[in-house]
C-alpha cells in the first residue's frame, strides 16, 4: 500500500508543479530557532525563539529588543516552544506560550502560560499560569499551542521520553489537550473533567483545522530508536481518540486505536513540525506541514468526502532552506516558513535562522 501511494505522489506532484509557481523571499534573518509565529490584528508578528525570547516584527522589521524574555531550559529539543495570540487579542491582549523550564530540583517541567501585551510599554507581562508541572524531558515536549475554530486552546504535549504515559489518560503527557482560554476544562471535552482531547501520542508538534469542516489534523514524530525507524505521522484527530503510541506505529492495527492517515514509512524521516491548512490561492484546501530532518515542506490534499483519504502528497523545497520548523498562513494569505538550522542539528547559513515568505501563484 505504501508503494502505490508513493507512485501517486510522484505523478501528481509533477502535474501540480506545472500548474503553479512558487516565489520565495527572505522575510527575516538572524533569528535563533524560531519555533512558532502568530499575527496580531495591529500588524505585529510575534515569534517565539526556542532559547526563550519572544520577538516582534513590525512592517517587516525585527524589533531588536525582545517583547519578553522567559527563563527556559534550553536543552536538546526543549525550551520556549509554541506561541498563540488570543482570537480576541484586540480586546484582551492575551498571548499564550508553552515552554520547558527547570523546576525545583533541576527537573525539566513544561508549562502553559498566559501572557499579556502591556499597551503602555508594548512589552509582555505574565497574566497567569494555565497548566504547570507537566513532565518534561530533553526531547518529546510537544509544545504546539493553537486556538481551534471553536475558540478553545489546544496544546500538544509529548511523552517526555516515558512512552507508557501516552496511554495513561490521567497523565497529560503524550496527549493533545483542550482548554478554555482561562485554563479551565471545557464542559464538552471528550473525557469529563479532563483536559485530554486525544491520547496515545508520542511527540505531536503540528495542529491544523480544515476550513469548512473544522476537522483537526496533527503531525507527530515517529520512533527513531529501538522501535524501528521513522513512521512519522499525520493523524486525523477525533475527540477522545487513542492514536496508539507506544502500542502500535505505522500500519499496525489494534482495536480501539486509530492509525495515521499517512506516515513516512520505515526508511524516510520527515521529523514533522508545524502544520496549517491553506485558505487561499492555488493551494487552498491543502494541508501543509514542515520537515526538520526532511528539510522540506510537505503538501497533502485530502479527499473532501473522506477525512482519512490522502489524494495527493508532495514534497517541496527539499534541502533548499534546511530544517523547517513551522509553516503559518498570514492574514493576507502569504505563507511563512520558519527555518531552524541553529537548533544544534542543522548546518546554519550566515543569515540563519530565517523566516521565508512564500507566495504561490
Amino acid at each position: 500500500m505504501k508503494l502505490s501511494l508513493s507512485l501517486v505522489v510522484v505523478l501528481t506532484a509533477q502535474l501540480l508543479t506545472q500548474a503553479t509557481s512558487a516565489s520565495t523571499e527572505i522575510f527575516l534573518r538572524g533569528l535563533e530557532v524560531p519555533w512558532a509565529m502568530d499575527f496580531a490584528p495591529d500588524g505585529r508578528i510575534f515569534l517565539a525563539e526556542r532559547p526563550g525570547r519572544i520577538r516582534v516584527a513590525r512592517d517587516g522589521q525585527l524589533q531588536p529588543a525582545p517583547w519578553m524574555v522567559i527563563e527556559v531550559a534550553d536543552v536538546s529539543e526543549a525550551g520556549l516552544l509554541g506561541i498563540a495570540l488570543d482570537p480576541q487579542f484586540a480586546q484582551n491582549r492575551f498571548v499564550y506560550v508553552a515552554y520547558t523550564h527547570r523546576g525545583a530540583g533541576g527537573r525539566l517541567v513544561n508549562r502553559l502560560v498566559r501572557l499579556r501585551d502591556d499597551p503602555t510599554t508594548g512589552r509582555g507581562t505574565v497574566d497567569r499560569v494555565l497548566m504547570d508541572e507537566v513532565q518534561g524531558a530533553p526531547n518529546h515536549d510537544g509544545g504546539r499551542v493553537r486556538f481551534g475554530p471553536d475558540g478553545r486552546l489546544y496544546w500538544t504535549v509529548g511523552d517526555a521520553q516515558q512512552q507508557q504515559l501516552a496511554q495513561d489518560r490521567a497523565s497529560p503527557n503524550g496527549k493533545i489537550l483542550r482548554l478554555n482560554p482561562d485554563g479551565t476544562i471545557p464542559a464538552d471535552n471528550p473525557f469529563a473533567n479532563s483536559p485530554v482531547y486525544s491520547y496515545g501520542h508520542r511527540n505531536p508538534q503540528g495542529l491544523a483545522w480544515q476550513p469548512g469542516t473544522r476537522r483537526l489534523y496533527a503531525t507527530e514524530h515517529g520512533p527513531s530508536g529501538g522501535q524501528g525507524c521513522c513512521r512519522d505521522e499525520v493523524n486525523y484527530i477525533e475527540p477522545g481518540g487513542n492514536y496508539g503510541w507506544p502500542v502500535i506505529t505505522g500500519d499496525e492495527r489494534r482495536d480501539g486505536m486509530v492509525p495515521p492517515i499517512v506516515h513516512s514509512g520505515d526508511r524516510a524521516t520527515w521529523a514533522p513540525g508545524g502544520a496549517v491548512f491553506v485558505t487561499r490561492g492555488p493551494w487552498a484546501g491543502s494541508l501543509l506541514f514542515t520537515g526538520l530532518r526532511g528539510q522540506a515542506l510537505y503538501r497533502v490534499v485530502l479527499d473532501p468526502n473522506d477525512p482519512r483519504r490522502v489524494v495527493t502528497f508532495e514534497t517541496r523545497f527539499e534541502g533548499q532552506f534546511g530544517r523547517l520548523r513551522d509553516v503559518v498562513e498570514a492574514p493576507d494569505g502569504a505563507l511563512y516558513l520558519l527555518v531552524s538550522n541553529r537548533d544544534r542539528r542543522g548546518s546554519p547559513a550566515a543569515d540563519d535562522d530565517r523566516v521565508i515568505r512564500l507566495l504561490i501563484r
Partner: protein
Amino acid sequence: MRGLRAGALAVLTAAGLASAYEAPPALEAGATPLPPVALRRIAIGLTQPVYVVHAGDGAGRLFVVEQAGVIRIVRDGQLLRAPFLDVRRRVIAGGELGLLSVAFHPRYATNGRLFVNYTTDGGNLRTVIAEYRVSAGNPDVADVAERVLLEIAQPFRNHNGGLNLFGPDGMLYVGMGDGGSGGDPFNNGQRLDALLGKLLRIDVDGATPYRTPPNNPFVGRGSARGEIWAYGLRNPWRFSFDRGTGRLFLADVGQNAWEEVDLVEKGQNYGWNIMEGTHCFNPPTDCNTNGLRVPIAEYGRADGCSITGGYVYRGPRIPGLVGRYLFGDYCSGRVWALSETAPGRWAAAQLLETGLRISSFGEDQDGEIHIVDHSGGVYVVTAR
C-alpha cells in the same frame, strides 16, 4: 512547600508575579493575649527536612524526615550520624516530591512497624505508602525490606500531600493532593472515584495489604473509593488530631490567593476546586456552595503563600498556649495561634515571625511543638 512554585514564577518577571495575586486583608487579632514564646534550636545540619515525629515508645527520640529519602534520629539534642532508614534509591525527590512523612504504629513499642509516604518514578510518577520495620538488633536502625500497601498515580509533579498519621482510633490517615498542575485540571478533588485530593483512612491491621474500614463514609457507594474519609482538598500539607478533643485540623494549600485551615469531619466536602478558601474558584463567581464546608481560618498573600499545618498545643510547658492550634506559612515564616473564642467562632493571631522556611510542625511525646526549617534545622517552641 508551594513557595517553590512561586519562586519559579518569579523568573518570568517580578511584575507579572505581583499582578497575579490579590492583596487580601490580614488575619484578625485573637480574643485573648498570647503568651510570649521563643524558638530553641535542637538540631541543625539536616538536608531539606520536611517532617519531625516521635515514635510513641517512650524512648525520647525524634525522627526527622529528609526529603531526599532519609529518616534521621535526634536523641538528647544530638543528631545521630547513622540514618534510621535510607530509601533514597526508591525515592524521586525535588520540588514538592520526595519522602514526605513517616508514621509509627500506635503499638510501635511492641510491633516495630512504621509507614512511610514517598513519591517514586521510573516511568509512572506515583505516591507509595509502604511499611518498614525496626531491625531486630538495633532500635536506631530500620530494616530495608519494604511492603507496599498502596500506590497512587500522580499525573503532575506537585501537590503530593504526603502525610501519614495514625488517628486516636488507630486508623492510618493519609493526605493526598489533587494530583497537581494548577486549578485541578482532572477535577480530582471532587471525584469520589479518585484517591487524589482526599484525606484517606485505612486500617493497617485488619488485612493485607490493608483493610478499608467498613465505617468509612463512602464504602459501598457505587464507584466511590472506600478509603476516602473527606474530600475536596487541594494539597493537604499537614494535619493533626487534637490530643484533647480528638478533632482533626487540616491545612490545605491554596491556588492563587487563599490558604486555609479546615476542621475535618467524616465524609465532608472541603470545596476544592469549586472554592479556594471561602471564595469561588471554579466558576470564579456564583459557584454552587451547597454542601461545602468552609475553612475555620484563611489568609491571603499579605501573610504568606503556602500554609503548613501544625498542632493544637497540649503540652505542659506553656500553659497560656493550651488549646490553641498553631500553624504557619512556608513562604513568610510566620506562625499563628488559632483559638475558638465561642463554639464555631475562630480567631487567629500571629505568634511568631520566625524567618524560617516552615516545612512542617511536629510534636514530641510530651506534646511540645516543634518547627522544621526546610533549610536544615529543627526548633522547639518554648516559653519566653
